[in-house]
């Protein structure tokens, strides 16, 4: 009981930091700072996932969101301007309307959500419990996430690997293989 009470405040702190970083990303126009802050945002998300005991997701978020994405966004930023154009005030209000409507819908849905950590919640009760009970008999490896991902859902994971492969294929077909001296030395355009 005490344990849960303490981590709860850590969660509040992390969510407050996520909000602050989100506002900073919206307000800033320097794209380098924005890219760095999106990396910080991913890292805070990863810390929050650890606090929610989702270590595998946290690991992926830290490696992909804070690591690779930041580098790729920096590479994309080098191809374009360093500052973003200011958007018109009309667009601000339209975006605010969409965000407010989505947020109101989410608050409306909160009472239907199961209590945090509820063992009888749908996510924990049916298939999830079956996996937790069957993995020691079927696979006998300690990490249930790896067992589900590689063995029970091996075919899905094969599909994911094919998706990753086709992502690279698409990028290489669009941007070239990056091998030649395809360098834009002429100017900023």
């Amino acid at each position, binding site marked *: 009981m005490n344990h849960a009470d303490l981590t709860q405040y850590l969660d509040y702190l992390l969510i407050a930091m996520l909000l602050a970083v989100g506002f900073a990303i919206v307000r800033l126009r320097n794209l380098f700072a924005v890219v760095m802050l999106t990396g910080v945002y991913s890292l805070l998300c990863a810390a929050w996932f650890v606090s929610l005991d989702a270590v595998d997701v946290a*690991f992926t978020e830290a490696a992909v969101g804070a690591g*690779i994405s930041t580098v790729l966004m920096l*590479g994309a930023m080098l191809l374009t301007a360093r500052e973003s154009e200011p958007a018109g005030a009309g667009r601000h209000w339209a975006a605010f309307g969409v965000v407010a409507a989505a947020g109101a819908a989410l608050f409306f849905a909160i009472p239907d959500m199961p209590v945090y950590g509820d063992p009888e919640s749908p996510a924990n009760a049916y298939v999830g419990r079956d996996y937790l009970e069957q993995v020691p008999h079927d696979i*006998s490896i300690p990490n249930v996430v790896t067992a589900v991902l590689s063995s029970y859902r091996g*075919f899905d994971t094969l599909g994911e690997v094919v998706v*990753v*492969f086709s992502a690279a294929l698409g*990028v290489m077909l669009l941007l*070239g293989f990056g*091998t030649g001296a395809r360098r834009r030395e002429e100017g900023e355009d």
Partner: protein
Amino acid sequence: MSPHLILQVVAKLLIPLIVIFGFYVQFHGEYGPGGGFQAGVIIAVAVILYALIFGIEAARRTVPPVVVRFGAALGVLIFAGVGVATLFMNGAGEPLNYLDYDALHPDQGHHTGQHYGIILIEIGVLTTVSSVMLAIFYAFAGRVPDIPDEEW
């Protein structure tokens, strides 16, 4: 002397540790968090860090783009090949199923076949993910000249 001397020294210390950590995540994925996806990204990050500090050309000499292209396809082939292998290695005499790792080893009591299968497909995932991340990085970085000194 390079203006990034401190960065280069620190990176040379860090890159081997990053790669070792990547392999730890890869082969420890059955016991702790992690697996082929995360390990592939970490190993790609090691090469990308090298490219950022020492220049894209040095990284291209170390990990040539042709290897990256080959690896991206090879990982998918390893994964799919394990599935094809399980179709033909029917040790337990049960119905043949694609990606049914129990067929890989006759020892059903300790699920050795499951362990073999998971390790093999995770190697395929590692190969594809690390190659794909590097391929995308090369495709982006190959379009701009190296970062000029005033932007550091």
